[in-house]
């Protein structure tokens, strides 16, 4: 990145905190994804069951 184009101060510690926040979010989203997958897996089973019954 051209240094002179960095005309706003990103703020001391701002890069570090973003890295930490993004790291935490990555973990949260990872588990959310697993939960969603499990949920959709059971929902699919339920749907198939109800379809079979019809």
């Amino acid at each position, binding site marked *: *990145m*051209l240094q*002179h*184009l*960095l*005309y*706003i*101060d*990103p*703020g*001391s*510690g*701002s*890069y*570090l*905190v*973003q*890295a*930490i*926040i*993004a*790291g*935490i*979010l*990555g973990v*949260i*989203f990872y588990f959310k994804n697993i939960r969603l997958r499990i949920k959709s897996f059971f929902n699919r089973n339920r749907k198939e069951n109800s379809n079979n019954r019809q």
Partner: protein
Amino acid sequence: MTRHPASYRDPSGFVYHSAGRLYRQVNKVYAGDYNRLMQSGLYHMLCEQNLLLRHKEINENIRNDSDWHITLLPEQIPFTSYPSEWCFEQLKDAALLTLRVAKIAIAKGMMLKDATAFNIQFIHGRPVFIDTLSFEKYNPSMPWVAYRQFCETFLFPLMIAHYDKMGIVPLMQGFAEGIPVHTAAKLLPYKSRFNAAAWLHVYLQNKFSNKHPAAASPVSFSEKKMMNLLNHLESTVERLSNFSKSPWRDYYAESVPGTDYLQAKEKIVTAYLQKINGKHLLDLGANDGHFSILATKSGFDVIAIDNDEQCINSFYKKTKAENITGVLPLCINIISPTPATGFANKERSSFEERIKPDALMALALLHHLCIGKNIPLEMLAGYFARLAPQLIIEFVAKEDEKTQLLLQNKKDIFPSYSIARFEEIFSEKFVIENKEMAGDTRRSIYFMKRR
């Protein structure tokens, strides 16, 4: 050919006036990023979705500048509003627009290098990103250079107004350059510590904000992390709201004069609107925008102002829901309109300097200013005459129950507040063209022209 007094921060270029039009010069130093914006398809993609202000390229060095790369003639904006004049929902939409633009930019290999609310203007009622020079080449290994600015100018004011159920206008007026993180941490209530978004973006950031950059070891970042961050900011902002009950919100729905009064008033105002020369109307004390919207139906471009943020909030939501484009609702107090601020008091001009209406509309407002705020009729007549050459104004008599409500806890020091004195005083500045009673109430509506 004068450089716009607010256009000095970014070395990439600047905005200037020439022959009544606003131009933007792109400097040589920004040529690479500008070409990338145009050639990557990002510009067209954003313009197609009406997210970015359109411009025409002019291959002429109008200012004879050695730094010149290209001249842009952007679509001209009829009225410039400032973030301190927006209601909560408007600032929220501006924040969401910024994040959306950032996400689209990343998909095209670019990123926003700044994220201030001043990059956004409301055009035909909708927020549009206006700073063409805010884009730079995206480097996936770097965090967002404008993250802190986004937090300070969008996220923190919205969060504080959300948690404290307070108005956003005083926050934006008091912190025009954004709310520093340590101040935000102090202004947020204790319970916000249990909210993940507040904890991450406010309290955690506050812990790190004092860390000196000398200790900045190269941080590892990726596009996935950036998208996580932007998506989280987006979902956080989407959840914020500062709805609260305002005494003014249901003024027309609940007010005692009732529907006969409203119908009569609509009829009179519609007839007066036909007499107005010009299409620019300033609605003072617009409330929920009932009459501003009525004016848009007669083809007016309306700037509607009210001191009550909750009114402007629901008014703005209504324009969004019903796709009304002819009116811009703003939180401006007519007895203390936005002053000129910024560098040399020139950077951001006062409300009066920006507004050039053909007519004013002041319905059910005069008694609040005279009796509620003790402003003499002479001063109001003078001010209104200075603002616009035509005036639609309603006089609410002292005997009216709404006026009596204002006098309930107040000594009646207003002997001159009568219809006769009103007509006499306003006749010094205006010629009264029409006068009609709204229903059988003690309210009269006038159409006047400046002498």
